[in-house]
């Protein structure tokens, strides 16, 4: 069997490696024999991330992109050396965390060297007085959180992919957890970082609560998507495990009512840890047994922390919900969510029926949030083949929201799945931009969204490209993502 038996999706512009044996021997010297492979079985394992169209390809025996070498460095110096070698030889390097990214960020579309960060998996220290934890960036999220929990803390960063994503991946994609309305997103949580730059230089952003020391350069690497540097270590805020939790839910007649209720809560500087609004379709899907929520918009809240504060937050939350025509639905819907929140079955269920399915999370200010929601639904419903478009809203700010759309459908006759998929994405993003929203809330750009970056950023995108060029003149670090449109436009 040869890997050539698998149809390759991204086959253009692959790097041509002149002297593979030489690179092999140098890589082996850098990382050691045990941390290096070109075996078919390892190469095939790194041909994908969790981009949903990739699951359709997987069952059809297609592979998205293919690397030439896999490495599992154990020290920051090894990473630095790999990057220096890659610059000399002009070979792409792709950082790989846990492969849960959903925008193709970790797919080696041009080939090259995978740097799997899994061996950077240690918790270095917890500092109770400063309320910080320092850990290596390859650590799995759940393993970090379990460690914190046993010591009486939480990071408050609980993405749905907690079980299958890494700290470095969170930083790379500016991730957001389910409890983010209280604890913040990853950029609010990271206080310090160690990064290897594309040319191998190691830099350190010291851990500090806040400083006024010129521009906040560290933020460049939060959302850098593995294109500007490889994060090897980070210090995060942590919190003592909450003393009390209040579980609250209300059903509203319209999405607008629910938006108003949540907006008014946040306006009072009340930050429930979890707020989730489900549109009518998603309410029907997740809460079919709740009579009060029939044909309504369900909203669930979790307030947590100091018990006196929680009591106050709970009472204001209830007051605002009731004022906005919310009907009490009790604790059960929240308990149901808590029980099922990591039970991901959709990615497995759709591809065998050739259903193309994906989620697109976008952001907007409050004043156009409802417009973004309705426009996306209306325009998606025009697409031939789309069976459903639904949404929930799970990240909130006093100034706006993150809306999470899910769509599914079957490509009409003559359309490839990728073409249909891209049409759905195009339509959603166009509607979002027209309504004044932003194209991504927390999944990042990767391959899937690079097409709209100029539109999103305007001429600031030129500045971003220049920064990339300064840091990575040979364009070796995770090329083909963010800055250029590598989606298979030719197939459209």
């Amino acid at each position, binding site marked *: 069997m040869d890997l050539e038996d698998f149809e390759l999706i991204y086959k253009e512009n692959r790097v041509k490696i002149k002297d593979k044996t030489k690179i092999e021997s140098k890589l082996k010297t850098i990382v050691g024999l045990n941390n290096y492979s070109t075996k078919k079985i*390892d190469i095939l394992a790194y041909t994908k991330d969790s981009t949903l169209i990739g699951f359709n390809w*997987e069952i059809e025996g297609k592979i998205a992109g293919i690397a030439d070498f896999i490495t599992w460095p154990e020290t920051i110096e090894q990473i630095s050396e790999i990057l220096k070698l890659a610059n000399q030889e002009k070979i792409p390097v792709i950082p790989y965390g846990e492969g849960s990214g959903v925008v193709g960020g970790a797919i080696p579309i041009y080939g090259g060297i995978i740097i799997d960060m899994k061996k950077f998996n240690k918790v270095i220290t917890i500092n109770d007085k400063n309320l910080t934890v320092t850990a290596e960036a390859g650590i799995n999220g759940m393993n970090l959180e379990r460690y914190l929990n046993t010591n009486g803390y939480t990071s408050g960063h609980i993405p749905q992919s907690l079980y299958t994503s890494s700290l470095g991946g969170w930083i790379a994609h500016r991730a957001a957890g389910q409890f983010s309305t209280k604890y913040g997103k990853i950029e609010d949580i990271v206080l310090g970082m160690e990064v290897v730059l594309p040319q191998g230089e190691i830099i350190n952003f010291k851990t500090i609560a806040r400083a006024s020391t010129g521009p906040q350069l560290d933020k460049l690497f939060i959302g850098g998507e593995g294109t500007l540097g490889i994060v090897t270590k980070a210090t995060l805020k942590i919190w003592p495990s909450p003393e009390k939790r209040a579980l609250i839910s209300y059903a509203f007649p319209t999405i607008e009512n629910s938006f108003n209720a949540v907006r008014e809560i946040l306006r009072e500087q009340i930050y429930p840890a979890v707020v989730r609004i489900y549109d009518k379709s998603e309410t029907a899907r997740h809460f079919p047994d709740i009579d009060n929520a029939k044909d309504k918009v369900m909203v669930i809240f979790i307030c947590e922390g100091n018990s006196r504060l929680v009591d106050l937050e709970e009472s204001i939350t209830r007051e605002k919900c009731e004022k906005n025509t919310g009907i009490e639905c009790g604790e059960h819907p929240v308990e149901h969510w808590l029980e099922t929140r990591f039970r991901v079955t959709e990615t497995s*269920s759709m591809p065998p029926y050739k259903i193309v399915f994906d989620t697109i999370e976008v952001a907007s200010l409050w004043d156009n949030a409802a417009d973004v929601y309705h426009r996306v639904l209306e325009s998606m419903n025009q697409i031939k083949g789309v069976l459903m478009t639904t949404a929930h809203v799970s990240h909130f700010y006093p100034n706006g929201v993150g809306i999470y759309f899910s769509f599914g459908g079957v490509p009409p006759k003559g359309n490839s799945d990728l073409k249909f998929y891209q049409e759905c994405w195009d339509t959603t993003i166009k509607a979002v931009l027209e309504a004044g929203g932003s194209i991504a809330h927390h999944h990042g750009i990767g391959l899937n969204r690079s097409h709209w970056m100029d539109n999103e950023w305007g001429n600031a995108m030129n500045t971003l490209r220049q920064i990339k060029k300064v840091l990575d003149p040979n364009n070796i670090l995770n090329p083909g993502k963010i800055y250029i449109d590598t989606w298979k436009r030719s197939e459209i």
Partner: protein
Amino acid sequence: MGIEETLNKYKWMVPLLQKADRETRSTLMKNFRQRKKNFFPEGEFKADVDNLIKCMLCPNMCRFDCGTLQATLTETMSPAYKARIGYYLTIGKIDYADSEFVDLMYKCTNEETCKVWCPFDFSVVSLLETVRDDINAKGFMPDFCKEQIEKLKNSNTIEGYNIFETYKEKGIENIETKGKDDVFYYIGCESMKFPEVIKANIEILKTAGIKFSTNLDKKICCGGPAFNIRDMETAIEFANKNKELIESTGAKIIISDCPGCILTLKERYEKAGVKIEKEIIHTTQYFMKLINEERIKITKSIPEEYRKITIHDPCLISRNLNDTESIRNILGKIQGLELVEPIYNNENTHCCGWSGTAHWADRDLAIKQAQNRVNELKETGVNIFISACPLCELGLAYGLKETEKEKYNILDISEILIKVL
């Protein structure tokens, strides 16, 4: 999921589907009808294709707790990837002759932590066993498996020689049945490597005045390795022989010091059509019962050097027999004993590396897994590790460096119990 539950789960889609145009609906219906034609192999196969597909298309939601993945820290060892390779082998996308890929189908331990977290309740090793069935049927059983089968056939045990015959030189007393025992103490092949444990168990049973036999002259392996390898012919042969031996003792209760034997005698035999109608329990469970019935009494306090201990819960006791209490209850009755729990304990215990086929397929992997577990136990700051499974005790020993063997002591629960009776 039952039909009613499935219909309920997807009810929300009905209004959305009704809105779709006719062509879209008919494409969808066609896709539903043709799922097997599109994605299942032709001809005969045993692989559980439906569930392999589900698992391979999952974003590896159990990866953080998978022992083999955490030991190797590579995507190649991730649960969903194993299922993906299983699927590709089954549909012929990867050739059975490609041993690199076939071998991966054996690199699972039987710990099944995947099952704890899996939304589908899958145990990956069980899915891979169905792939192993096809590998065997097509004549591609790996050599490391053939070797084990050879040993079973030649010596009736897991070693190249009959390990039960070593009882005399190890000073283990053999008690042959006269057909009217209360209990058959079913000693595992692996347990024979720990004569002190067997001696302790025998002494405890004697102290309680139990009428029991060990039948070491007739004793053979339970056939566990053949079940793991899925050489079902050999497995059933062992099941039948064991059934005969067990029935010849007249005992109503079968106790074993090896949780692997219990799994095989209880569950695997029955699945293979050989049911043993006896109570089959672990020695720990039986000893707890004896303590409750006051047939054995803890009279002494624990010697100082054994005062502080930690527990390694064997996967098969905590997740298969669902019993994390017996061992703790026994220890709890010992005066002066201080138990320091490791972070991963009870049903969240981690594997010692030595269960299933992984240690034959990739010894380094098993050792790494053992080291991971030993490190977790060491984090308790305690240097006595108590367990209740000979394979665990073997695996943990592999996890210790030569230089650490003096410092750390791996003991079976019976070795502690015997000190306080």
